[in-house]
């Protein structure tokens, strides 16, 4: 690994110190939220190369294009699919299934959010579900706050269930090479338990508040969900492509196709189906619109981050951090796994879980010799995933989806405050980690 770094670090400085200082500086500025995180990560990456810690070739080798490709492919597919109106359809259909009774609507919308989040990016999911939720709660004349909080929690819980549900899982799956099915086999069961367990206190917190009149319920029951579908042809095409993409993920072990290939292939196919009957001018416009849906800022953040973490890796910082963690846990696997679970959860409640997981992956990888090879690391990967994804529920700044919902709520005149949110959700997050603790201990240790 050391061979990847540039031969001459600027002014003869120690490469490990330069990489650590740049990483810590970028991290601190990300937390301060004064500058956009993509700018900071790319600037940090450029400085790493300028200081001579990495050559440009080595920096590019640090970028995991599988993660970038998977994210980009799924963003394209979801952006095109959303135009069909299928997500609004699903939300209205689910609310009507429970006769528009407020508690039932809350439960159904939360489950729809969890389900969609397991297949789509969490931010995209809440952007699709929250406006319909506000529409329904306005008609029901109930406070949207409990609904929005349930959707925040379920977007993060649902996203934990699969490889493609949340960026930490995408990174773990891609950088460690864990197949899609293994995530479902190992994480989905505990995610279902967490969902069930979280419902109980939530029900008692809000059951008295969530009442409405029969007249208000009738207004929601009069919604015609089939009118929500704007483009039936596009819907059919999108459902076929989504089914193919999911089949591609499920069979990746047999086909040896990487997730990025499946997602990008699906996106290309959907673009083709959506455009082949259009004129060249229309195609140009449509493709432009489709690519505008890709969150380039997020992707560029990942690029910069991968380079920064690669700098830590090649300069030996990660190895030394791993050694210290193992010293602290005395090399005991049970203690290390549970420390990773709780540490990830608490830290992810306050800091961005993406750079945290990006740092933890090489750190955990370097523990392989201590824990008997790659197979011995599996409980650590599940602990990292569960802690980092579910920890995001702890505070309003814990995950991007939380902040997006808070922004939408503010604009709808229903602000969600940091302390109010934390009072409701930090305890629920700790409860979910207790469930995961028991699950990991029982299943793997």
């Amino acid at each position, binding site marked *: 690994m050391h061979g990847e770094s540039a031969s001459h670090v600027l002014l003869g400085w120690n490469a490990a110190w330069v990489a650590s200082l740049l990483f810590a500086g970028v991290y601190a500025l990300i937390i301060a939220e004064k500058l956009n995180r993509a700018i900071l990560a790319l600037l940090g990456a450029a400085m790493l190369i300028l200081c001579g810690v990495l050559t440009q070739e080595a920096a590019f080798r640090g970028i995991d294009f599988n993660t970038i490709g998977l994210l980009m492919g799924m963003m394209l597919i979801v952006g095109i699919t959303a135009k069909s109106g299928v997500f*609004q359809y699903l939300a209205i259909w689910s609310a009507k299934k429970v006769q528009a009774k407020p508690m039932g609507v809350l439960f159904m919308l939360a489950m729809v959010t969890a389900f969609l989040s397991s297949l789509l990016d969490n931010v995209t999911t809440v952007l699709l579900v929250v*406006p319909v939720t*506000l*529409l329904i709660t306005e008609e029901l004349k109930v406070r949207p706050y409990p609904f929005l909080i349930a959707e925040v929690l379920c977007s993060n819980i649902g996203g934990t269930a699969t490889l493609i549900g949340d960026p930490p899982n995408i990174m773990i799956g891609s950088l460690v090479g864990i197949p899609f099915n293994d995530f479902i086999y190992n994480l989905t069961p505990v995610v279902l338990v967490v969902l069930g367990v979280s419902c109980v206190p939530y029900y008692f917190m809000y059951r008295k508040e969530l009442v409405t009149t029969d007249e208000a319920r009738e207004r929601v029951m009069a919604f015609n969900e*089939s*009118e*929500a579908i*704007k483009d039936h042809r596009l819907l059919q095409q999108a459902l076929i492509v989504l089914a193919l993409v999911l089949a591609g993920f499920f069979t990746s072990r047999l086909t040896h196709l990487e997730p990025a290939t499946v997602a990008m292939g699906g996106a290309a196919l959907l673009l083709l189906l959506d455009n082949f009957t259009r004129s060249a001018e229309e195609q140009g416009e449509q493709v432009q619109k489709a690519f505008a849906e890709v969150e380039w800022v997020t992707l560029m953040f990942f690029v910069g981050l991968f380079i920064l973490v690669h700098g830590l890796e090649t300069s030996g910082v990660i190895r030394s951090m791993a050694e210290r963690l193992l010293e602290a846990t005395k090399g005991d696997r049970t203690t290390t796994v549970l420390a990773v679970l709780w540490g990830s959860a608490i830290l992810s409640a306050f800091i961005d879980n993406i750079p945290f997981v990006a740092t933890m992956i090489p750190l955990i990888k370097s523990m392989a010799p201590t824990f008997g090879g790659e197979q011995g690391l599996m409980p650590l990967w599940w602990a990292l995933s569960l802690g980092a994804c579910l920890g995001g529920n702890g505070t309003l700044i814990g995950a991007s989806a939380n902040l997006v919902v808070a922004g939408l709520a503010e604009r*709808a*005149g229903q602000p969600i405050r940091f302390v109010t949110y934390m009072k409701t959700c930090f305890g629920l997050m700790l409860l979910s980690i207790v469930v995961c603790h028991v699950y990991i201990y029982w299943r793997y240790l």
Partner: protein
Amino acid sequence: MKIGEIMNRAPVSVRMDQTFGEAFRVLVETGHKFLPVVDAEGVYHGNFDLKDVWGVLLPKAARLDRKSIENLAFVPSSLEKMKDKLADASGDLVEKYVTRSDAPPLAPESPVIQGILMLDECGETLAVVDANTHKLVGILSATDVLNALR
């Protein structure tokens, strides 16, 4: 040529302390899409326009941002229901709805080309305000410019 030479010097306006219902009636009766809002001293505070009326009629969720809800065909609606919504809002003060235009108000001394630039960017009608007192002195509409060009 200056804006003051072609603007409408007797614009219909509403006061901050008038009600939504009164402002709505003025919009309907005059056929205007925009009304400048002033206080008792005639100082310009912003606009009351059709967007404020649409805001009352549309669900809040549809106005979060441009893409929040692009389709409301699934929500049953009737004229009676919309009239009820307008009736609910009719007692609100205009003050609650007044919005500042994206563009700074025009001054009568500004050149007409500046007015055309603002009309191109910000809509069909703009308030013209005295630069010192901020009192409303007129409005400049697309029709005023076209008439001047005839």
